């Protein structure tokens, strides 16, 4: 119970201004990816359990709303990864560098790096959607 409290207090320390923003984004991105992954494990496993269903599942992923969702999913996986790496590297290797100033700066850096990595991916996926779903 004591360690649980410490853990929650520890998470609470990620809150406040830029930290609050990255805390919420990190949480939503992680939960969104997890929701996708749970469905994804089930649809992939149809290749073994119900092979005739697999193409139907993939057909759904090819629809425009789902392709837009995949572009968002890629942002979630990239942002959660960059920001998670920030948290992990500070916590594990340089914990004494956690202070308001480094957190503020590194939070902006995570968001910036994530957007820069995501833009080319979004471009390629967006183009693929226009080509396949709108005959461009």
């Amino acid at each position, binding site marked *: *119970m*004591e*360690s*649980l409290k*410490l*853990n*929650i*207090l*520890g*998470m609470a*320390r990620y809150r406040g201004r830029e930290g609050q923003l990255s805390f919420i984004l990190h*949480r939503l991105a*992680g*939960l969104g*990816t*997890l929701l996708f*992954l*749970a469905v994804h*494990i*089930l649809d*992939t*496993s*149809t*290749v*073994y*359990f119900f*092979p*005739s269903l*697999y*193409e139907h599942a*993939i057909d759904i*992923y*090819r629809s425009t709303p*789902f*392709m837009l969702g*995949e572009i968002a*999913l*890629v942002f979630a*996986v*990239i942002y959660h*990864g960059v920001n*998670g*790496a920030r*948290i*992990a590297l500070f*916590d*594990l290797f340089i*914990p*004494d560098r*956690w*202070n*308001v100033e480094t957190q503020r700066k590194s939070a902006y850096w995570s968001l910036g790096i994530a957007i820069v990595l995501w833009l080319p*991916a979004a471009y*390629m*996926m967006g183009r*693929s959607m226009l080509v*396949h779903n709108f005959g461009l």
Partner: protein
Amino acid sequence: MATNTNQVQLNQAAAPEGFESWAWKWMRYSGLLLIPLAWGHVLIQDILVGVHAIDLDYVALRWASLGWRVYDFLLLAFAFAHGVNGLRQVLNDYIRSDTTRKRVTWLLFILWLVLSLIGAAAIVGGVRAP
């Protein structure tokens, strides 16, 4: 009194070894490992290949090589355990009762076990003819 951030840090460094401390480390190490694993998978499947080129034959072709099966197995093991433990931590932020926490933890454990077994069975069994 000393209420600067360094003081807080010192207090936290004294956290006892135990399940939560182990889970805390797990989230960080597995997360770092997921950068190559999850990003590599998404880059190949979603960005370079794309859902329009994916079908049963495609999966059969990939799983014909043991290397990709091992890769997918590691991805399954690390991403799902990381994600479900993350969900447990999020829920613990909002659940106040100890009994409910225990029940939710068991529920999540069963969910994790069942889905992991289903996913692993598919990787081991491979693609079957429709």
